[in-house]
């Protein structure tokens, strides 16, 4: 009797498992389909697309659309390809991500381990910045960038993203450090470590997962941002997203869909890569931060 029931239990679990995997596979296909179509069409000559066969694999494989999108396509008025704008985006995103993460970590450290009168209120105000729609800050931000004389430049965009990101990164690090034992900080104080030594030697080495979360979140947001890029950067200093828009929306000549697809994949690639490399830390870090708030 016991043997029989054990047998059925295994069989049921196998069938359930098969269903689960089938389901997951279907969903994976569903989500991968748009990306697949982009990839397939970016490797076709334009004639095959305009011929009306979007789904089929290329008959004539070519990487010419990729080369064109990267270095020769018409962006706005210049035939520069996306390359300079890709570099713009990197130059903008990397410092903004690093700066906002470092400041967020410091804020979280102070707000949990060096609490002062009114620290909760300050945290509340910082949180507020997470909920303010981008559009509201456009005009004040433009004024500040103008005053600092960095309007329309990449440093200007770095500042915008850095400031806008602090709210989120502070939230992440504060929640993470709230669960971090205060006794460790006290022990380090007695051992003679100062404010920054404790931060550098004790807190940061234990912050791996939340640094990953902050990096992924900030990088994705900053890389994908269009509004700030379109508002505060012009011409040669525009980020990738704006350049992609200019590529796709150029109204002269033939619409080169294959080049557009290639450009879109280029624009999406870095965030995709970040997720693939650090995605598991992202989930782990989000969980760790949510244990105690």
């Amino acid at each position, binding site marked *: 009797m016991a043997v029989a029931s054990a047998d059925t239990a295994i069989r049921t679990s196998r069938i359930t498992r098969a269903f689960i995997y089938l389901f997951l596979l279907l969903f994976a296909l569903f989500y991968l389909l748009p990306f697949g179509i982009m990839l397939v069409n970016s490797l076709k000559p334009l004639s095959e697309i305009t011929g009306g066969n979007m789904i089929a694999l290329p008959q004539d494989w070519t990487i010419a659309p990729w080369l064109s999108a990267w270095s020769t396509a018409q962006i706005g008025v210049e035939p520069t390809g996306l390359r300079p704008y890709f570099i713009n985006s990197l130059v903008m995103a990397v410092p903004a991500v690093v700066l906002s993460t470092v400041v967020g970590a410091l804020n979280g450290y102070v707000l949990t381990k060096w609490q002062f009168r009114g620290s909760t209120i300050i945290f509340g105000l910082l949180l507020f910045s997470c909920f303010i729609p981008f559009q509201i800050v456009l005009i004040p931000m433009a004024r500040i960038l103008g005053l600092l004389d960095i309007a329309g430049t990449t440093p200007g965009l770095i500042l915008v993203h850095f400031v806008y990101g602090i709210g989120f990164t502070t939230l992440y690090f504060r929640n993470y450090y709230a669960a971090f*034992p205060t*006794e*460790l900080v*006290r*022990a*380090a*104080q*007695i*051992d*003679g*470590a100062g404010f920054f*030594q404790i931060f550098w*030697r*004790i807190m940061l*080495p*234990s912050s791996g997962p939340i640094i990953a979360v902050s990096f992924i979140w900030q990088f994705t947001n900053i890389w994908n941002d269009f509004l700030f890029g379109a508002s505060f950067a012009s011409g040669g200093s525009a980020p990738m997203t704006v350049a992609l828009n200019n590529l796709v929306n150029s109204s002269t000549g033939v619409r080169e869909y294959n080049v557009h697809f290639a450009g879109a994949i280029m624009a999406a690639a870095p965030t995709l890569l970040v997720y693939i490399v650090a995605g598991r830390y992202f989930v782990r870090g989000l969980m760790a931060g949510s244990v105690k708030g």
Partner: protein
Amino acid sequence: MGFLDIDNVTKSYGAVEVLHKVDIEVHEGEFLVLVGPSGCGKSTLLNMIAGLEGISSGEIRIKDRVMNGVHPSRRNIAMVFQSYALYPNMTVGQNITFGLEMHGTPKSEREKAMKDVAQLLQIEPLLDRKPGQLSGGQRQRVAMGRALVRNPDVFLFDEPLSNLDAKLRVDMRIEIKKLHQRLGTTIVYVTHDQIEAMTLSTRIAVMFDGYVQQLGTPKEIYDAPANLFVATFMGSPAMNVLPATLVERDGALHALISAADGKERALRIENAPPAYATYKDAKVLLGIRPEAITDPEGADRNARNIQHLTNKVTVIEPAGADTFVTMTLSGKDCIARMRADADVIPGRDFAFAINMDKAVLFDPKTEQRIA
């Protein structure tokens, strides 16, 4: 002048005073235990000695140097935390030497100090491991190593054994005592466990509600508790406290209590302190430790005043080494501690012997001991 002076120290948060005029003088080499229930202010006091919390008024001095406002790292103290607070990202060796590194000790000296301490605590094989790979007892040793390596004036222990299981706790207790006897260091130790307090300390400060209720040697605290709180907090099972009336019969004072049968029993008191006279014919609380109530054969042979009393036994609890016998006296449960093989049967009458030398009286209103 003590080695560590806690001089009229108070602590308040806003208008709320949580520690009231604490005044303790700790001598060099003394093992002072601060004991009390949670929320009594013992950890706050320890943190104030460490410099982790500010002092609202009064003074803390170590070796006659005023410590108010001095940074924790400059007080030459070391602290062992309840959670051990080992740095998770560093190896055991780095954990132990971190303090020396922060104080700018040269590397060769740090290595030597680390080796000495590791040898003392027998943790040499662990030096390259991370705290996460250690057992509770090993972490405890490393935490003590981190404190010892600095060679501080005063060691502060904040409930260091409460995260260990029962057996390990007893082992580590003995280790700490051995260490203190060998090194002769000055230790302030916080615990809520009265057995730790009794066994480890040279002196105990029993705290409750932000007041030091009594400061004294373990024997003083146990035998002559200053008030009802100290009497019932220290000792396990707790001291029996029985409502009684003090009367004079045949030229001697007697404490009148009622037995389970509702009839009166008189316990003669010898060598009564003069203060007892003022409570003649008044209500008092009679405090008797469980081990002062035994069977007649098990009574202390050196006791001068054994009073006999027959009463009905309600419950017996054999605990291996002893048997705890519960009876009703003056309407309260009263526990007696018998030899393991005492012949006691629940529901029957039994002849108890009460060692009245050890009995104490409390004023029912002020709850202070009458003496």
